[in-house]
């Protein structure tokens, strides 16, 4: 074999290998989705969606309280985290002074890198212990800590993408800066900002670790946001590690529900953004 033939052979082999790598990576998603659909779709029924969990070992029962609990806590996190992230992002993009902006950005990055279990520990010391109570409020607070850096970074990014000409045109017409930002810049970047917010919410909806010692869990309906509550991710965890087959069945169903919610939200968000450039990573 000539040297050229050898090189051509190596070329073919290596390039095929990279194709195999891609195929592996992509097929993983389909494997996970397929497995969940296969195992979970048989278990999602009216019972699952509307009933409370039954005592251990009894068959049947559902996760209605977990579904509502997850929605409640994501709602609380959104109410706390989205405004902070949004206005913080507006500050960084429009009003920021150099030193302070750098500090804020750095701290937000830091917060983003905190492992979710450590955020749970922090929320326990700051909310649960003083309140003498596990609660959805604590869980929502923990989730909001994760939502803030994501929202802030994406808001800042998309505001920064708005072309200078738009701002300068508005200013030239005599509008004060705050009016320019509120009525021209933000609406222009709204699509991207909304996408960032939706992706952030999808991300925290699936988090389980911060809820372990903040919202704890509940066998029944939470009677208010100052009471512990069940949530889908925590239920999946407890049911998956239990020995009961019926609980496994329910864990698959919950997993399917959660994954569908997260994936649909992700796809919708990217579709809003208009495809092409991939949205926020990491």
């Amino acid at each position, binding site marked *: 074999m000539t040297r050229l033939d050898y090189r051509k052979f190596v070329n073919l082999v290596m390039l095929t290998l990279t194709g195999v790598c891609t195929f592996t990576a992509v097929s993983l998603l389909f494997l996970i989705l397929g497995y969940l659909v296969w195992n979970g779709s048989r278990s999602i029924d009216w019972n699952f969606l509307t009933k409370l969990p039954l005592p251990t070992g009894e068959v049947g029962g559902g996760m209605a309280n977990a579904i509502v609990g997850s929605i409640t806590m994501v709602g609380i996190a959104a109410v706390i985290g989205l405004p902070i992230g949004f206005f913080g992002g507006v500050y960084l993009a429009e*009003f920021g002074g150099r030193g302070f902006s750098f500090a804020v950005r750095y701290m937000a990055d830091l917060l983003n890198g905190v492992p979710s279990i450590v955020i749970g520990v922090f929320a326990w010391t700051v909310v649960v212990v003083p309140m003498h109570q596990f609660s959805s409020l604590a869980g929502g607070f923990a989730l909001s800590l994760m939502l803030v850096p994501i929202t802030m970074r994406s808001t800042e990014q998309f505001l920064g993408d708005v072309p200078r000409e738009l701002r300068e045109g508005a200013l030239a017409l005599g509008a004060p800066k705050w009016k320019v930002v509120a009525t021209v810049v933000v609406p222009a970047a709204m699509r991207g900002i909304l996408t960032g917010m939706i992706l952030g919410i999808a991300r925290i909806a699936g988090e389980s670790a911060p809820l372990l010692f903040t919202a704890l869990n509940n066998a029944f309906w939470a009677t208010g946001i100052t009471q512990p509550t069940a949530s889908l991710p925590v239920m999946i965890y407890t049911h998956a590690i239990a020995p009961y087959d019926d609980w496994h069945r329910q864990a698959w169903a919950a997993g399917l529900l959660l994954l569908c919610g997260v994936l649909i939200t992700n796809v919708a968000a990217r579709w809003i953004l208009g495809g092409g450039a991939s949205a926020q990573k990491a």
Partner: protein
Amino acid sequence: MAPSTILAGTARQTRGFWSRLRTGDEVAHLVTFAFAAIVLLMTILLAVGLWKTSGPSQAKFGWKFLVGTNWDPVAGDFGALPFIYGTILTSVLALVISVPVGVGAAIFLSELAPPKLANACTFLVELLAAVPSVIYGLMAIFTVVPLLRQYGEPFLKRTLGFLPFFQGPMLGIGFLAAGLVLSIMTVPYIIAISRESLMSVPRDQREAAMALGATRWESTSQVVVPYARLGIFGSVFLGLARALGETMAVTMVIGNDPSIHASLFASGYTIASVLANEFTEATGKLYQSSLVELGLVLFLITIIVNALARLLVLATSRKGTARTA
């Protein structure tokens, strides 16, 4: 100065402040500043809170905490080494598997695939990144673990059993299972960021290599990849930072054994897992503060790795021309 003059002066200044505030700009500035400051304060509060709560164990163990191998809640003796070992071992194992696959896929998607296919595949891979950790754990318990226990580990034992890494009882759960699951979770990040780095390499580099007679693969491996290597390293570090902090999926398959074993088949523990498992039952100030100190160690490790990652990714995107978002 007479008190009345001072008061009058202060009143004038205050009035000035409030009158300036009547303009929308100042209000907007103040409001958004306040929100930004909240973020700053929250993070500082978190770091300070962690530091203070871990006070008792810092006082008792000092630096020995980081190299102590004993984790004995009953005797009150705590050491971080088994958890640091487990965290680093599972993360490194994850990277050993996911970096070749990830970079390979990134090369395929940036160099070889037709644009439509590349975009579709990238989109699907990014969806993988959105899958919650607990679902990976759920999948792992019922697929990865039994497969490892019945086929994977016996196979490794038969072929590579002379190495200390592949000895001992084969349970399915343990370092190997955790490493495998983590590798699946880090692959999307490596693919996404490596692909961006590779695409930011200027076209002329490739074309020059081809003009000199290089095959596609040679131009990629000897010219493009080295050019983009900083970004690829950055993606590796980012994947590492993710893997280090992963909690749920690892907790479900790691085996919960706070000791150091050479074998990958053995059970172990990571910092995130021990926090998830033991925090609710940590009685006594010393136990709790030892756990929080572990959390602090993890926090510091992830800060350093994240910072390195961003520096590296930044370095490539500055070097590359053209390809802006």
